């Protein structure tokens, strides 16, 4: 659905990614997509539905279940002059390719003395809340954010899903995009006339003055709900969507915290060693004197994700737990 007067289009998160894929495939002959079931099946999350028919099997490549080989082949193809987009079905499966990610994709540029860049884009689904249990639900993008040499994007909105992918394809170095699996059917609007995106900048999704709620990915939506709840309780919360975990836009975080004097970091990963721990440490390092309370964290319970709905709900951060954590700072 396109607005006749503007370039604003209503679409789902899934369609936003597909439209970016289509645009990239149409405009750059070096771009191709490969991964498990991206072709004939249409993508495990139906993101690439219809692309095989439109672009053919050379550019929409179904791969064997060989994560290490096809991520490594993506690196090699990028070195060889292509612009591969590799889809890994879920972050849990991506562990089978971590050797290629850490030892090759991330290291090649520095290890070669700057001779080789790897313009590779890897997309994968992440996160829980779909009763997929302990091997399809985890939140491991924080591990990726630990690795120098790559960029880590976590689009939370429909326009970010589209424009982050297009921006990633302009990068000379590897970019990893983590798409929360609960977001694919979410609707939103994209505006093709907007200026080019700098994905390294965090977005203030809601202005507030009394506490900074800092999050990324699908938890943005629970956090915005929590901010509404807090408003009813008389607390004016600011909500920051990190958007990019590496490099981290610490300036936006510190500028918010120096205004609100309180911070809650909300992250779907396990608490110990989570990305929330990194954000919390950087706030402590950069804004200690501005804080009126210790930085709080809302993370997942330290348990392999259970299947039963009530247990899964109890594992994940919820609107109520975010609200409680924020209230405790006052």
């Amino acid at each position, binding site marked *: 659905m396109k607005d006749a007067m503007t370039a604003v289009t209503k679409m789902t998160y899934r369609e936003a990614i597909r439209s970016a894929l289509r645009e990239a495939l149409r405009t750059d002959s070096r771009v191709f997509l490969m991964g498990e079931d991206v072709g004939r099946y249409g993508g495990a999350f139906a993101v690439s539905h219809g692309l095989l028919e439109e672009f053919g099997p050379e550019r929409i490549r179904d791969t064997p279940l*060989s994560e290490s*080989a096809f991520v490594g082949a993506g690196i*090699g*193809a990028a070195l060889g*002059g292509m612009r591969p987009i590799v889809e890994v079905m879920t972050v849990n499966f991506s562990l089978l390719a971590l050797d290629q990610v850490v030892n090759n994709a991330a290291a090649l540029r520095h290890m070669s003395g*700057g*001779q080789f860049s790897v313009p590779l884009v890897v997309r994968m689904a992440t996160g829980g809340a779909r009763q997929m249990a302990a091997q399809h639900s985890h939140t491991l993008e924080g591990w990726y954010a630990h690795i120098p*040499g790559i960029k880590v994007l976590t689009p939370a909105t429909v326009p970010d899903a589209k424009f982050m992918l297009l921006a990633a394809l302009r990068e000379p170095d590897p970019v990893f995009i983590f798409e929360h699996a609960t977001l694919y059917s979410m609707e939103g609007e994209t505006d093709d006339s907007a200026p080019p995106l700098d994905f390294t*900048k965090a977005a203030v999704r809601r202005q507030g003055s009394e506490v900074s709620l800092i999050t990324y990915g699908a938890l943005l939506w629970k956090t915005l709900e929590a901010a509404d709840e807090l408003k009813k309780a008389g607390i004016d919360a600011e909500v920051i969507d990190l958007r990019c975990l590496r490099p981290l836009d610490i300036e936006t975080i510190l500028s918010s915290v120096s205004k609100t004097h309180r911070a809650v970091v909300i992250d779907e990963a396990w608490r110990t060693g989570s990305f929330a721990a990194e954000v919390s440490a950087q706030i402590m390092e950069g804004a200690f004197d501005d804080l009126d309370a210790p930085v709080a964290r809302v993370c997942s319970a330290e348990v392999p994700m259970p299947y039963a709905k009530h247990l899964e709900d109890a594992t994940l951060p919820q609107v109520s737990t975010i609200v409680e954590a924020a209230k405790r700072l006052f």
Partner: protein
Amino acid sequence: MVNLEADLTPGESYTQPTREHALELLHGMLRIRRFEEKAAEVYSLGKIRGFLHLYIGEEAVAVGAMQAIGPDDAVVATYREHGHALTRGIPASVLMAEMYGKVTGCSRGHGGSMHFFDASRRFYGGYAIVGGGIPIAVGLALADKMLNQRRVTACFFGDGAVAEGEFHESMNLAALWKLPVLFLCENNLYAMGTALERYQSQTDISLKARSYNVTSMAVDGMDVLASERAARQAAETVRETGAPFLLEFRTYRFRAHSMSDPDLYRTKEEIEKWKQRDPISTFEHRLRDRGLLTDSDLSRIESEVALEITEAVEFAEAGEFEPVEDLLNDVCTPRPVQPNVSGR
């Protein structure tokens, strides 16, 4: 269990090489041998640190195989890649400087012995996670295929890599997608200190390739002429068909796995037996028997090599270290300054 003495493409059936070419091959092997002897010497002086994996004993493989690889082709190698880098044409000076950790090294001192790179020679690097370079080679060949480049990607790896999943995944993918990769397995019979028959249920590596519909062949990797002939045949097949080929070189490393390996897992007798098949001395004898090599040829080659290596050490010694201020420069490609737009 494969009989390693039999079942190989015999070197004797190779067309008699020209004198010029034969001397080139000998020069190439001696260059690697002397370069590595010098590397070991300066290692013991503390000039080189980290891991240093010597190729001594396996020189016929790199020198033979590389005869089949043209300048437009790509090379992917392992952490035991001094011989491949030298044979590919990367100057000994920048390789030595790299091991010295100097900014004048081929990887600015970031890689050391295990990570030689040279973009201008399409030398895509030394990979030190066993098997880790194989998927990269598959991807390079995929790019060539998609860009309609009729080139070959030569991918060296050892027998140890054959136990890695990445070998099997890559064999399958290269065959499935019909990609022009020349897989060059340097079977030196040991994965670090574990003998082939102690870690493989099936020790015939070329048979594993065939199970993925990858054409394969085994050759005596101690024989430079046989290695060259087999590599030319294999590379030609890859160029003609666009499909992968695995060539297994049966070879042996005379030195320990690395400088820190006490080499307790092999007998002296076994090592001595293989040294009787030294690829350099046996080749010298063959050339002398055929009247292709004289004492003066050999001393000329030795003195050329000695000069090159002396100059390489001088170059390495004279080089500067990269300034510490530049430590992070090559982690990411420098980005142009972008407008401060938080986005749509």
